[in-house]
């Protein structure tokens, strides 16, 4: 069954193989011939680009300043997608993907420093 990008993919939650959220499908990258989806783009940078306008530029700009190592939005190869139902399930654990910059920064500088941050809830 062909997938409708706008209806079945965009804005859907991406989960890793253990069901832990990885991000939203904020945009998709098509293959050069536009015949299939090459990668999922996730993160506020991709989201801002879709918004457009002042608000969109502000979202993208803020996200880009937080993440100076990367040149574009976070990419997840479509080959890693195992299944699409009410969420997009990946076949790998999220530790294997590059972590979102904001999450990594907050983990290192804020949350990780509070006692008990590594304990299961």
């Amino acid at each position, binding site marked *: 069954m062909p997938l409708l990008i706008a209806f*079945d993919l*965009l*804005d*859907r*939650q*991406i989960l890793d193989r253990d069901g*832990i*959220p*990885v*991000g*939203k499908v*904020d945009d998709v990258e098509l293959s050069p011939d536009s015949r299939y989806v090459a990668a999922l783009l*996730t993160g*506020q940078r991709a*989201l801002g680009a*879709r*918004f457009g306008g002042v608000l969109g530029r502000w979202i993208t700009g803020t996200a880009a300043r937080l993440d100076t190592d990367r040149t574009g939005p976070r990419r997840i190869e479509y080959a890693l997608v195992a299944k699409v*139902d*009410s*969420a997009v399930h990946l076949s790998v654990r999220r530790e294997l993907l590059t972590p*979102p910059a*904001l*999450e990594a920064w*907050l*983990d290192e500088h*804020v*949350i*990780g420093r*509070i006692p*008990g*941050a*590594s*304990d*299961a*809830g």
Partner: protein
Amino acid sequence: MKRLLAVTLGILTAIGGFVDIGDIVSTSESGSRFGVAHTWVLVVGIIGICVYAEMSGRVTAISTRPVFDLIRERLGPRIGLVNLLGSYLITLLTLAAEIGGVALALQLLSGASYLLWVPAAAIVLWLALWRVKFETLERVFGLSGLALVVLLVSIFWLHPDFADLKGQATTFSPPKGENWPTYFFMAIALFASAMTPYEVFFFSSGGVEERWTPRDLTISRINVFLGFPLGGLLAFGFLATSAIVFEPIGVDVSTLGQAVLPAGMAFGRIGLGLAILGVFAATFGAAMETGLSAGYTVAQYFGWSWGKFLRPRQAARFHVVVLVSILLAVAALLTTIDPIQLTEYMLIFSAVVLPLTYLPILVVANDRGYLGDKVNGPFANIMGVIYLIIVVAAAVAAVPVMIFTGMGG
């Protein structure tokens, strides 16, 4: 026993909706001015929240996704963002009011000003959200909030004229000396408190925290049909006791101390103690509900990892949103803004954003892509549409009525 405890999610959610600090005072105020004339609003509200909480619980159990997550998928990121901003703002204001409410309950017990209790209450709240298991929170505060049953029992102990109460409850107009706009203002506030948006978001996120699967559909429904009417009944306790005690002598209730007084008149010190304990548990429970909901909605909109079933380090952004929300709430309270007035404003503004919350839920609950053959039946859809009309009417009327009456003056 485990089965019995499985309904505490519904009870806690409902207590946070129906008997949080603003509701306690505005419900009691309505009782003291209008008698039990607003009972019908509570009934309408209880049925409404049951209709939509049932849909949300079903969506969550079948799709294993919280409803707020699906709203952006179906309405797109722009409308989703408007929805996020609206509900986050209301949730944050309520969080501030609830922390103030916990502090007010402690002021009643200790005599020390509530402003001194605000930082302490906020720290304990944050520690609870940081360290304590979701199920434990839900059980402790869901069950101890039931101490408010003392107000329901007080109704009988105060020996009211039941024929008179019945007369008030079946007269659908304001009593002599009160006017229609104020009557409607109170009705909208009570209705909005029954249907506050964070209830459905918290309820469905709680279902995910408890790892509901399609097999838990029954658990979800028991939670809805037991928990929410129970919460509504506790609110009726405040309405009726204030109507019995204050309405005949023409005193307007405007403080928490007055609202719990009828329990003391019926059962002395023990009754008063139980009522204050219940208020403490209910407001603390509501503070938890709103604190977590603030994090849930933001994280679910952006697709971040969230929830207490993960270690905090696995959901760093979620925990930062919760922490920052609590800090903002404390900052708001320390400006010495009155927490009770804060919720009264909040109730009216939440009436305005209600359609944005409930329309998408109705849409998602009809989506076979998520629910397969468990989509809404004709009954759920008829009820859903009727309530959507009521919600839109309340939203349109809310602000003009507020301005016209000068906040129910």
